[in-house]
Each structure stands twice: as structure tokens, then as C-alpha cells.
């Protein structure tokens, strides 16, 4: 929505991630069918669609957890081919999960440190002999992890030694994002990052997602059901239904799209509820306003 984004004609720039006719079958079920999607640097793109439309499956395909039945996924001009999950991370993609998948018996800090795994160099022998550079590397890693946590405010930094299972749901979501950020991704995939949050918490989440883009210059691909999120922060929205992409466009276009209304939005879209107002209302803080001119 920023001027910059609107000016840049997307067709001329190279997309960061491109899906070409991606299809995934589970047995007889076509969970994803011929989906084309292009995401450009520093965009926030949302994927929405009814439950079971195949959104999460698209994420799983991108991140190498599933292999596409057909089609091609291209990242920075290079096909991802059969990259396994950790290779995908190495290429610069990181994700969160719909059902939070943290390492429950590890502390907040350790969770983030695991995310830094690829950035660290110490081999098993280095770990045993622990030469000075390894010590330094570890310290550096810790410092960075804390820095990442501080992205969500001092609050998480203070709780760095807490086992994640003791955190509130919202905090766990944050830790999961911090863990994803730790691998220094170029593209961040968030699967329903506000699920299970109440409206106040959701608002806050919207803020930091936007900050991720603005401050860390990340590109973000987002799955979300809450309209106050998708409509509020997306540059573009793609709509899936029964595995097919049925619409793509700016939030406002999507909101008015007949097919999307019948398949997904239901009366809510037309009812124009209060939540909408909330979502679209400009942010009170000055900082937030900056991104809204």
C-alpha cells in the first residue's frame, strides 16, 4: 500500500518467490491444483480461503515438507526442485506453523538458538574442543537471539530462560516467529499467526508483522482467516478454494469479489461489522502512521 509498492510494476521486477502451476495430490484428493503465485520483494501477501482450501499445503510445498505432484517453485530465480526442508531454510525461507510447533522442553532462548543453527559453523569436533572462536560464536549467537526477542519488546527478553510451554499462547507465537527470523530469511511464511488470539492481541500482532517488513525488510507470505489482519496489512491477497486459486488482487478488490464472498467471506463481508472498522482504522502511534501514507 505504500507508494513504492504501488509504483513498482510487478511484471518488470523479478519475483522473490514464484509458484508455477503447482499441484499436490493426496491419494485421490487434489489439495492444491495448478496454483500460480508470485511474491515480490518486501511485499506482504496473504493467502486466504475456506478451511481445507489447501493454504497450509501450499506452505508445506514451498518449504519442502511435501513434494509437489507437479509444477515448479522458483525462489530468487532458481527452482527449489526437491530441496529438503533444511535446504529450503538455507536458501532463505522460514516459516511458522498453524499449530505452534515449538520445542516445548527448551527455553525461549534455546528455541531461537535452534533457529540460528544454519548460521553457526561449529562442527561436532569444534563443539567438543571448543576453541575460542566457537565460544565467541556461541556468545554472538546468544546476543543475536536476545536481539531478535527484543523485537517483540523487553518482555520476551526477560523471559528468555523460561520453558516455552509456560508461555502464553501469544508469546509462543512470537517465539516461533523469532525462531524463524533467526535463520535470517528473505521470505517469511506465517501460517495463521493470530489464531487463538483475542482481538486486542490480534491488533498487536498486526503491528509487528508490519514492522517485520518495514524494519527488517522481509517479504511476508501470510495465511490468515481474520479479516482485520488480511485486509489490514496485505499488499495483495490470493484466494484459494478447493485447491484452486479463485482470485487475486488488492484487499479492496477481494472484498468485493462475488466468488470470494460466496466461498469464503459470507455475510461478514457485507455486514461490515465493527471489527472491520477497527482493522482499517489508522494506527494511533506515529510510527505506525509512517507506513500508511
Amino acid at each position, binding site marked *: 500500500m505504500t507508494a513504492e509498492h504501488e509504483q513498482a510494476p510487478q511484471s518488470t521486477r523479478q519475483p522473490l518467490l514464484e509458484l508455477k502451476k503447482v499441484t499436490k495430490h*493426496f*491419494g485421490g484428493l487434489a489439495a492444491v491444483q495448478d496454483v500460480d503465485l508470485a511474491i515480490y520483494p518486501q511485499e506482504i501477501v496473504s493467502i486466504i480461503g475456506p478451511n481445507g482450501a489447501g493454504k497450509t499445503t501450499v506452505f508445506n510445498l514451498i*518449504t*519442502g*515438507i*511435501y*513434494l509437489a505432484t507437479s509444477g515448479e517453485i522458483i525462489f530468487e530465480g532458481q527452482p527449489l526442485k526437491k530441496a*529438503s*526442508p*533444511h535446504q529450503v*531454510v*538455507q536458501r532463505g525461507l*522460514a*516459516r511458522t*506453523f498453524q*499449530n*505452534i*510447533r*515449538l*520445542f*516445548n*522442553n*527448551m527455553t525461549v532462548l*534455546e528455541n531461537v*538458538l*535452534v*533457529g540460528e*543453527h*544454519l548460521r*553457526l559453523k*561449529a*562442527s*561436532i569436533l*569444534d*563443539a*567438543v574442543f*571448543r576453541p575460542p572462536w*566457537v565460544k565467541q560464536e*556461541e*556468545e554472538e*549467537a*546468544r546476543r543475536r537471539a536476545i536481539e531478535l526477542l527484543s523485537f517483540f519488546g523487553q*518482555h520476551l527478553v*526477560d*523471559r528468555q*530462560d*523460561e*520453558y516455552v*510451554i*509456560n508461555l502464553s499462547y501469544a508469546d509462543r507465537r512470537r517465539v516461533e516467529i523469532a*525462531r*524463524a527470523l*533467526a*535463520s535470517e530469511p528473505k521470505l517469511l511464511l506465517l501460517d495463521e499467526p493470530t489464531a487463538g488470539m483475542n482481538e486486542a492481541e490480534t491488533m498487536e500482532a498486526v503491528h509487528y508483522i508490519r514492522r517485520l517488513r518495514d524494519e527488517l525488510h522481509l517479504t511476508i507470505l501470510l495465511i490468515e482467516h481474520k479479516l482485520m489482519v488480511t485486509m489490514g496489512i496485505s499488499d495483495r491477497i490470493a484466494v484459494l478454494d478447493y485447491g484452486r486459486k479463485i482470485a487475486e488482487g488488492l484487499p479492496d478488490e477481494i472484498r468485493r469479489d462475488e466468488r470470494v464472498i460466496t466461498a469464503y467471506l459470507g455475510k461478514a463481508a457485507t455486514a461490515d461489522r465493527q471489527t472491520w472498522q477497527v482493522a482499517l482504522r489508522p494506527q494511533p502511534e506515529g510510527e505506525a502512521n509512517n507506513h500508511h501514507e
Partner: protein
Amino acid sequence: MLVPSQILPQTGETRRLLLKWVIAFLVPVLVFTLVWSGEAILNAALLAIFFPGSFSIAAIAAGLFMLLFYGIITGLTGYLVAADSGRQSLLDLWISMFFFTVVPILLIYITANLFVGLAASVVVWAFYYYGRRLVRRFRPPAPLPPLPSLKVLDAEMRATLLTRARLGSFWFALSFSLIWLLVDLLFYFTGQYGQASLVFLVWILLRSVLLPVAGWLLGSLGGLVAIRHAVPANGNGSNGDRAGAPVSTRRLRLLSATRAREEARDLVPNDLPLRSTGARNFYLLLLLALLVFYPMIDPFLFGPGTDSRLDNYGNAGYYVILALGLNIVVGFAGLLDLGYVAFFVIGAYTWAMVGSPQLTVLTGIHINPDIWPWLFWPMLIVAALIAALWGVLLGAPTLRLRGDYLAIVTLGFGEIIPIVVQNLDKYTNGTNGLTGIYSPAFFGVHWNVSTSEPYYYLILVLIAIVLLANLRLRDSRIGRAWIAMREDEIAAAASGINLTRTKLLAFAAGAFFSGIAGAYYAAKLSTVTSGNFSFSDSVIYLAMVVLGGLGSIPGVVVGALAVYAVNVLVLPQLDALGNDPSSIIYPIYTHILQVIPNFSFSNIRNLIFGIILVVLMIFRPEGLIPSTRRRHELHHTEAEGVEITSLDTPPGAPGFESEMRVE
């Protein structure tokens, strides 16, 4: 950095606190002194110096140990007085003192074996913990004083603290020396010391003066350590080390109650001073002194038979290494390995084939028997490497397997290896095994099958190395990857962890240590036989790890020692004990014999062991010393499982092809 403001108020209360600590320490020390004449050993060492005729290195070393022992205890007293803010109630203190010092000393004394006594204490501890948990469930411990009342220690407070520490150990040493003095004088003048000279009399008098002074000094030392743990130099002197990191009240308040308590325990030794980092250092020092001097003091403590006891400890040692290795695979990486014995076999046979005349039989190479034993050192590494290689070879086919499918493959591997070793008898001598395996050689050490001391020190060093490696691995990038993988493979992969590599590394590392244990075993026993390695051994190793506490390094060490002591030392000897009229079980044994004429403990040894396993698991399902992680896990048993959270879920129903790719 934080000590309650009400620390050591200048009242009668303070004196009572001081007394509490002094008496608490006096008890175990007195038990030790009186039960074992620890002081007599000291005197003997002194006499050994003054009377050249009776000069004996062992006596002097033993005396040195005793000095260290009492010194450390005195220092510890000072430390604890400084660290304690009076939060620990007298009863709590006494109960823990009783269970953690008096009980082990008495048990060791009764069983006349350090090891068995400690193992028995471990069992007692398990019950103690269980009982305490029960009690606390019904009568939750009184809440700690509110944390916000903690404040930063200032110079004045430091001074008070230090004085108290000094006073504490001074009183301790004084009361102690007075008791010694009285007893010694009594013995001296009643002639119990025979023709002990005047020098001796001078020594005991001198000692009575020196001790309180030493107490004063050591107390200051302990106090300083305590304060250093409590207060960094400038109030926020952080060096990245958590123990020294500053902690803010705010932060403590933010933490959940349990976590805050853990935090406070590490950082502020006044919460549970007996378990603070500082106290732990003292214990470690004590343990180290004990381990190093042990062969010298053993004859003084338990009388003749040192060699065979050391031999036992040497055997226990390789179990510790095995358990530590298995812990990497099962505890850290979460890969259930039921065939761990295979790597042990590989390690053992590597040295057995190279370090015995079998090499000559097979290859015709004749190696000078003077040089041969030296080969042990490089072969120790080679054996470990070969085992690690096999670890990778075994790991490779199992990569796509999960949970119990993995377990069965490892089990199979554990079965195959001994069979192969047995059937390739052209090379390995089959069931009859290889004998005449060389002992290692080391400068000036007399080393053969009938000596135990060198093996004792060798295993100490090996354990130290393996322990260090384990600790470092655990706290490294690799260790984190293992644990992450255990927790959630998919999330781990999505965090950039190469599952293939990480799993193979776990197998290799585990096997590596097992290989070391194997080579040591072969050299120590001088014999290996293929029939001696079976599934049951793998199971025993697993029991050691689980019983001790999965993933917990100290737990695993204790587990290995406990299982070894119970299963290998105590149970097989019950019959001998039962037949010995001086043993405690003699009356029981004779009684049973009257009812069941053919009764023999050896026939129900597994029954007893089995029952112990079941009972211990029921009492401490998370292990004797659970890792902080696992301890945690247990308290969150009703974790909010979402969908299929466990990767080990059995694919029972007809369904779908495997989709998650793990190459």
C-alpha cells in the same frame, strides 16, 4: 547480587542460625571421624613422616586427603553460613543433612564398600524424594519470602556476611578440634597409642590451636566464594556466564513461580544454599579429592581387599561411559537404541584382535611385546572411530524410520554383530573368544591383569574426558539440534536442521564412546567372548540411562553406577553375604533357609532386580536425577496436544502414503 534485606540481623536469631549450620556440619564430620578414625589417618600420616621406619606413601596420601576433606568441609561451612539467609528451616536442613550425608556414610560403613553404599543411598534417596513429594502434595512448603524484598548487597552487608562466615567455620573448627583433643588425650594417657612419642603429644596440642585458625581462614574463603556468587564486583558484572549474570527483581517477578525459584537458587545462593552453584563446587571438589585419593585411603577405610574393590570400580567405570554414550542417542536425540551393545562389541574386538597374539595368528606379524601394550593408546581412538563408523552405517538405513521401527532395527543390529563375530571364528575365535589381550603400558606403571589401580585411574581419566565432551556437546549447536530433533522433527527441519546429518552424528557420537568403553573393557579383562554380548546388555544400558534420568548427564552417571552396584555387585554377592555370620542379612538368610531349604539368592537375583526396576520407575518415573528439561516435561503431562503431535504415533489404520520426506 541479591540477598534479602533482612540478612543476618544482629540479634540472638543470628547466633541461632550460625549454630544451626555449625551443628549441621558437625554431625556428618563426626560420623566420618569416629566411624573411620579419619583423624587417626591424619595422625598416622604425621607419624609416617616423623618415624622414617614406618614411612609409607599411602599413609601420607591418605592423610593428605583427610586434610583436604576437612578443609573443604570447613570452607563449605563458611560458604553456607554466608549464603544462608535463614530461609532454610531447621527441620528441612536437618532432614537433607541426614539423607545426603549421614545416610550415605552409614550405608557405606555398613556395607563396607564405597560403591555399594552409595548405590544403596541412591535407592534411599529415590524413596526420600518420593516421600517428600507426597508430603509436599498434602502440605505444600511454605512460600518463600517475597522476592521483591531482595536487594543489592552493599559494602556494609558484605562485611557482616564475611564476619559471620568466618565465625561460622571458626566455631565449627573449634568444636571439632576440642572433641579431637579430648579423645586423643584420653587415648594418649590411657596408653592406647602405645609408645607414641612426645612429638605426637605436641602435634595434638598444636593441632588444637591450628585448627580454629584454619577454620577462621577457610571460613573467610568460603564466605568470599559465597559473596562472589552473590555479588558481582560492580553490581552488574556480567561476563555472559549465567551464574554471574545480573538479575533484576523485575525479571524475577516476571518469571513463573517455579522458574523464579530455580533462577533464584542458581543466582542467589540464599534460597537453597545446599544446592547452590557455590555449594556444588565444594561438593565437586570433595568428590574429586575423594576419587583421586581413593586408592590410597581405601585400605584405611575398608581394610584389606583394596585391589578387588578397585577392580569393581574399574568395571563400573565403563558402564558409566556406555551410559553416557547411549544417553546421547536416546536422551538427547530421542532415538531409541536397543542394540547399543553392538558398538561395545566392536570396540572391544578392535583392541582384542590387535592387542593380543591373535594378530600374529591372523597376519603373522610379530610385534615386540614391549611395544605392543603401547599400541593401546592409538587403538583406543581407532576402536572408537571404527565404532563410530559403524554407528553411521547402522544409522544410514534407519533414517527414514521412526520410533519403534528404529528401535527394532538397532535391536537387530545388536543381534547381528555378536553373531557375525561368533561365526567368523576364523578371525575372532568365535564363542571361545580372544584371550591374552594386552594391558596398556604407561611410563613406569606396573600394568597387568592382576593390578587394578592403573585401570582405576585410566577409567577416571576416560570418564573425565567423556563427561567433558558430553557436557560440551550438550551445550553446543549440535546438542541443541539433537534436542530439537527429539522434540519435533518437522519443526527442527524447518529451522534448518539437517535431520540426516544430525541423526547420524548422534549415532556416531554414541558409538564412539561405546567404542572407547569396549577397548578399555578388553584391555582390562584381557578376555572377550562373543557370547557375552546380548540384547539383555543393551537393555541394561538402557535401564541405566532411563533410571538415571534421560538426557541428564549427572543422572546417567548415577544411574549407571546404581545399576552396576545393584545388579553386578550386590545381587550376586547376596549368597556369600548370607553365609557370612557377620553380615546383616545372615539372620534373614538362615531364616529363609529353614523355610526353603534350597534357597539361593542367585536364583532370584533377576526377580529382585526386576522388582527394583519396577519400583524405582514407579517412584521416580523421570529418573533419579532428571534433567531440568525432563523434570519439566513431567509436570506438563497434559500438554495441549494438537493434532498428531508425536512423530512416534503408530500408523495403525489404513491410510496414506508417507508424505513427510526425510532423506
